[in-house]
């Protein structure tokens, strides 16, 4: 027999594969097909938070210093943050570089 490869028994799926508790996407790693990665230069950053506002995947998290740091676990590398940054503090870098 082929090895079972699913993550949950078909008998335990909720009705219509519905998700009954909100926020479950947090545990879903969706950043692994990224080809470009945003890198922030915190010496240039003015902490305006536009990267945080414009990111479609809520990748940026505010840290104690008032800066915003990207969580690459969810980042798709779309580059919107780099485009919107008013002081060009964010550069898109090839993955693997």
């Amino acid at each position, binding site marked *: 027999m082929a090895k079972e490869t699913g*993550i*949950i028994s078909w008998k335990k799926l909720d009705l*219509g594969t519905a*998700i*009954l508790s909100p926020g479950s996407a947090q545990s879903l790693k969706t950043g692994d097909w990224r080809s470009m990665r945003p890198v922030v230069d915190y010496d240039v950053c003015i902490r305006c938070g536009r990267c945080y506002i414009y990111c479609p995947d809520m990748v940026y998290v505010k840290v104690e210093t008032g800066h915003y740091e990207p969580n690459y676990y969810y980042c798709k590398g779309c580059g919107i943050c780099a485009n919107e940054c008013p002081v060009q503090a964010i550069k898109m870098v090839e993955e693997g570089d």
Partner: protein
Amino acid sequence: MGKRVGMEVSIAAAEAVGMADVDLIAAYPITPQTHVVEHLSELVADGHLDAEFVPVESEHSAMSTCVGSSAAGARTFTSTSSQGYALMAEICYIAAGLRLPIVMVVANRALSAPINIWNDHADMMMSRDTGWIQTIAENGQEVVDLIFHAFRVAEDHRVLLPFIINMDGFTLSHVIEPIILPDKEEVARYLPPFKPALRLDPKHPVTIGPVGMPDVYTEAKKVHDEVLKASKDVIVEAWKELGDQFGRYYKPVETYKTEDAENLLFTMGSISETAMTAIDAMRESGKKVGLVHLRLWRPFPSDEIYEAMKGAKAIAIVDRALTLNGVCGPVCAEIKSTLYDRKFHPYIKNYIAGLGGRDVTVDNFVEMMDKLAESAGRGDPMGYEIVGVKE
């Protein structure tokens, strides 16, 4: 006790949906639509039915609206046909995968090209794999009864699947027949109010319709397969209760004069009544023939088909659609598969008949059965044949 009326079958279907106390009807009102939703819009507009009627801009939107409505916990109905059904097909798969008990009447008609909106089963066969439960009616009374039955089964928490009642376009949808319409109170006794197992509710947020990655999609399909197969017991149980209450009993597979029959004819839909007349005529001339006719199309009643056909020498299977696979028609393929699995290998000839509104007559059936006997006697290759095609 209800009343016996002479009524166009589409209008009677609308009356039945109204008696089922539906909450929302979404429909695209232009050809190939039928009077089913036209009459429902009248019932709502005239204040006879307390429901939302949503006239949308396409059948794709009609089924999308139904998905939202059913997910919100409303008893939901729509109706379509032919090309409109084809446009709706994308969302039909979603309604089934999300386990939403939407009920739909399909007036079965041909698919283009050439443009043709007359009766055949091309649209039914196009959507055979959408994962809905599907029954098929032979007359107007059955359309009405099968609508009550559909809501009852679809909403049963052991099932929770969308449900189609197929009725032949024009041959049934546009003819006036004598029909017993029950009282609304009788229907309410048979059909309890819809209690959704899961619904969209801002107080209890859930996600209906999320992505299913490769690590869960297979399991989701497995559930659907198991639930659809298991629905047969509920379908049969609900038919039994319908019979006990209204006096009209239905089975997944019906038989007519098959007890001592050597050769069998197989049909589905309204031509089955013509086929019974043909069987009577052939019996009078001493031919040992019988009819097997199908009422439940999905889930496919394999066991019942085998029980009805076992022991036959030769079988003529009538398909009302051409699969264009060069092998045989869609219903014939499933019957052959069923019988092969059970190691019963009779002589089977497949007749493709009644395409795009061409009549299927008593003479057609007699000719099919005579040719079946001759071909089986000679041991001709089995295969399929398009009946009455002009060379």
